[in-house]
């Protein structure tokens, strides 16, 4: 690429959105917030492409679930840090006042519109897969549509649960959501590589019934329950089998059904 071409690309880059806060949760996890363009509309649970200018001047984008709810004036993201990752190796160093590039087309299947009405909504997350659910559990519409919301979050180490734990605990005092979630939101963290009150993969805890007995709730059924999955490819495949064996079928925006899963997730 010659200099003229490089300059042309940089000239064409959008300004990006201002970073308003950054919080590092562990040496592998951080969250940050950016200003939200007035024109950006999205449904809670959707993802968007965000990025930074690459070394060659060309923007480098990756899909990130928006962790903030659709009513929030800012956009929040929750990210892993990969030392040699093309984007996260740079993104992890952003500071307040920096700018992050944002493409203007949010999309995704982890949305309430892709589910048919039901009584309970199960959200199954591993690692940074909690991000879209961080958005949905802060959206009043979630509690208008479902009588009970069960959020499970599985990580390798206890420290990796902190983002979700702090968020869930903060909701009780939230002026918008606090009253709505009273008794409706159940949080079920599980750990795979350290001793913890609920230890093991969520697929095992679901299959052996421990999830239900621990929370004192009845087993899942296709008639009354809906589910959303956001995790590794392994979790997606295993959960798909478990849910379909229970009679749930995969939904989409154009074809709402009993469960949806996020394939864009790579964290």
């Amino acid at each position, binding site marked *: 690429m010659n200099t003229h071409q490089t300059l042309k690309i940089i000239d064409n880059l959008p300004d990006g959105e201002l970073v308003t806060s950054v919080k590092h949760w562990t040496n592998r996890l951080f969250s940050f917030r950016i200003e939200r363009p007035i024109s950006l509309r999205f449904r809670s649970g959707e*993802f968007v492409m965000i990025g930074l200018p690459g070394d060659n001047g060309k923007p480098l*984008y990756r899909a990130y679930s928006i962790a903030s709810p659709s009513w929030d004036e800012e956009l929040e993201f929750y990210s892993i840090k990969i030392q040699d990752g093309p984007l996260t190796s740079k993104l992890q160093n952003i500071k307040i006042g920096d700018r992050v590039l944002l493409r203007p087309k949010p999309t995704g299947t982890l949305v309430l519109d892709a589910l048919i009405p039901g009584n309970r909504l199960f959200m199954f997350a591993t690692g940074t897969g909690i991000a879209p659910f961080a958005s949905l559990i802060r959206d009043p519409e979630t509690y208008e549509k479902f009588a009970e919301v069960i959020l499970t979050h599985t990580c390798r180490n206890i420290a990796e649960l902190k983002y979700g734990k702090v968020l869930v605990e903060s909701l009780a005092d939230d002026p918008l959501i606090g009253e709505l979630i009273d008794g409706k939101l159940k949080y079920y963290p599980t750990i795979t590589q350290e001793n913890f009150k609920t230890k093991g993969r969520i697929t095992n805890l679901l299959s052996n019934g421990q999830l239900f007995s621990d929370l004192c709730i009845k087993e899942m059924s296709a008639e009354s329950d809906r589910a959303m999955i956001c995790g590794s490819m392994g979790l997606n495949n295993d959960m798909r089998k478990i849910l379909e064996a229970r009679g749930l079928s*995969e939904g989409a*925006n154009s*074809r709402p059904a009993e469960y949806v899963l996020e*394939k*864009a997730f790579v964290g």
Partner: protein
Amino acid sequence: MTYVVTENCIKCKYTDCVSVCPVDCFYEGENMLVIHPDECIDCGVCEPECPADAIKPDSETELEALAEIECRVFQKMARDSRSERSTYRC
């Protein structure tokens, strides 16, 4: 991995896939849409949205050949200055 459009798309005019694609990587072929393999980010959102069940991951063995054909379609499109982005978008 990327996603490919199979023959179920032929003469389909739903374009739900185009609406949900975050990177607008669908292009209009002669009688069906094709996914640009270099632009597709493998997010998979289009797959369940397709009413014709025409979009599949190219990791499905029988679709590898189709993915190669679609690659050649784009090589041809790159040479053809008349080709334009899909005009199906609502």
